[in-house]
């Protein structure tokens, strides 16, 4: 083999290694973090993530990195730092609305994971849950309201984008849980009319999208919110309608006017689904190595336990508010055909280009040197395309599988707060969270809890 031929083969091999996808490393890294997450040692998770930038998470994975670090810092109770990194994630996601044509070409002809990860709509919406909670935990109600309004603006944008398109490409057109959160924050800020309208939107999103598509019915507490906000906003006719729907609707308003404090516990539970690569590799008769890689989404084992809030002597069960698993899995299924078609088209393009180049080099086959180089290019091209072919299996890996909510109105005073895990039949399993709190008259106290098992 002439030195120039060898140089081409080495170049191809080098480039193939250089461009290898990071997704596999990220998946493994997630597994490495898991023991700390199970122990609830979010400090350790956050510390580890800090050193992973540029090592596990490359530049094209930066949105994932900021999202994962943001959630780890939140549960490590480093709220200011958590918001700072989540703001960076949001800025990146906004900037990445502008698609890189070179990356798009790369995605189509080389590999899906060449493209910078832009984050899913639901991931961006849920990031506002954490920035809102971060601001609340720092006693910055004004900033929490800004975050809630920001979430609202993003959901409005989604509404306009999907209006009349019959949910083109997605089932997730609104986020009922975040709409509820927006309403709750606006109510805390005294914007009763806007709060009421957000609760109405949340109620509609639960009935029209969440219940039929994601199997999440409207939580029972929402009717109480609707009634209370309607009364506070002076919409008495509408309040009467909500009371008719549920006779308990006025309980929370009565508690509020009696000066009771409210405790709201938002529990992130379980593990969000993850993606893995399924690939088919087969050598063709002429030596070309054909490889097609497509992502698959895998839900974590079904969550069978429930949760219960104990506040002093009062007890209430948690209700499901958002199923991240259902949103991620069903949305992925909706897009799966397109992803598969793109992977097959990409394999065909790579094969076609390699074939054309190798045939061009071979010429009329009268020169054995050229023929040898053509064959080498065919094999090398196949190896190269097989090496770079990879499915995009990135996602916000540290998200919980679901969010549950428990709420309770109690008189001011000191309380022992516990979140426990219970079996389906209601028997005690384990204590997930414990705290001592002191509530003032009329206070709204929001607690964020994370559990894995």
């Amino acid at each position: 083999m002439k030195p120039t031929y060898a140089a081409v083969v080495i170049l191809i091999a080098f480039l193939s290694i250089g461009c290898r996808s990071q997704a596999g490393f990220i998946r493994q890294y997630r597994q490495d973090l898991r023991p700390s997450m199970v122990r609830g040692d979010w400090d350790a998770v956050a510390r580890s993530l800090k050193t992973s930038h540029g090592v596990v998470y490359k530049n094209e994975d930066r949105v994932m990195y900021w999202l994962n670090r943001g959630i780890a810092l939140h549960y490590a109770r480093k709220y200011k730092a958590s918001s700072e990194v989540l703001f960076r994630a949001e800025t990146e996601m906004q900037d990445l609305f502008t698609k890189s044509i070179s990356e798009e070409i790369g995605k189509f002809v080389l590999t899906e994971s060449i493209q910078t990860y832009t984050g899913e709509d639901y991931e961006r919406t849920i990031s506002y849950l954490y920035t809102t909670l971060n601001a609340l935990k720092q006693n910055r109600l004004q900033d929490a309201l800004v975050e809630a309004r920001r979430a609202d603006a993003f959901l409005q944008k989604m509404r306009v984008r999907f209006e009349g398109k019959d949910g083109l490409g997605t089932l997730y057109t609104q986020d009922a849980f975040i709409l509820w959160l927006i309403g709750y924050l606006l109510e805390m800020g005294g914007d009763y009319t806007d709060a009421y309208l957000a609760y109405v939107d949340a109620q509609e999103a639960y009935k029209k999208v969440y219940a039929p598509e994601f199997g999440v019915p409207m939580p029972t507490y929402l009717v109480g919110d609707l009634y209370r906000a309607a009364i506070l906003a002076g919409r008495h006719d509408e309040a009467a309608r909500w009371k008719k729907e549920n006779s308990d609707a006025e309980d929370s308003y009565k508690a509020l006017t009696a000066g009771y404090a409210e405790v709201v516990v938002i529990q992130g539970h379980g593990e969000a689904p993850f993606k893995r690569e399924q690939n088919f590799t087969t050598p063709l008769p002429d030596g070309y190595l054909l490889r097609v890689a497509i992502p698959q989404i895998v839900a974590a084992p079904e969550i069978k336990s429930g949760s219960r809030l104990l506040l002093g002597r009062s007890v209430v069960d948690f209700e499901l508010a958002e199923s991240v698993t259902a949103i991620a899995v069903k949305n992925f299924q909706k897009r799966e055909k397109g992803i598969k078609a793109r992977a097959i088209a990409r394999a065909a393009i790579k094969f076609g280009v390699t074939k054309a180049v190798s045939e061009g080099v071979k010429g009329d086959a009268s020169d054995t040197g050229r023929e040898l180089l053509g064959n080498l290019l065919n094999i090398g091209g196949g190896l190269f395309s097989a090496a770079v072919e990879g499915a995009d299996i990135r996602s916000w890996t540290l998200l919980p599988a679901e969010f549950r909510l428990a709420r309770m109105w109690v008189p001011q005073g000191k309380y022992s707060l516990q979140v426990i895990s219970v079996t389906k039949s209601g028997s005690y399993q384990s204590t997930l969270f414990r705290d001592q709190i002191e509530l003032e008259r009329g206070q709204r106290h929001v607690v964020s809890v994370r559990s894995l098992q």
Partner: protein
Amino acid sequence: MRSSLILIAAFFMIFETVACSSSTPRRVTRTNPTSVEGGDLSGYWNDIDAGQVAQTLTGQLVGAGWLAEHYRASAGDERPVIKLMGVIKRTDDRNVNEQFFGKQIERFLLNSGRVRVVAAAGQEGINTRERERQSVHASDESTKTQQNELGADYTLQTIVNSQNETDGGGRSVRAYLVNMELVNVETQEKVWIGEKAIRKVIAQSRARW
């Protein structure tokens, strides 16, 4: 033959550059604080908005009829005492820094020379605590007395509202409406309301190289 090799190498190098490039050079240019160089980078509220709005609204405030009315009512040349009640954010814009904006308002009001400004809401405690400390630790001659604060004649509240519209894609409009309300502390009468609107059209391209 040679040209084919060069072509192939160039082909792979282009992809390598596309796939693996990441560094972005950074350049910093120092400007005058009042400069508008750089302009609007994101479409959100920025230092230019804060400066322009503070200057416009405080200019309206010290040039409005309530001031003459105050002099007439107080039958003298005592400048009115204003207490700043802070900035309320009714917006989705986290770039609105109420401290930064509040300080601009305070500076323009003081520098106008037409009004007196007392410590803003939330800042009074610093001096109260200092006087308490002085009463224990400072010499009798230098201790500042309690109950000698300058009472405000008016309170000034600033509210930043914003409203957005979007096409669901890359085009959006961000409108800010900043209101200031001056309220007579004694009578609770609103004696002046100022308003300044800002409108920005933001277009984000769908594609870049």
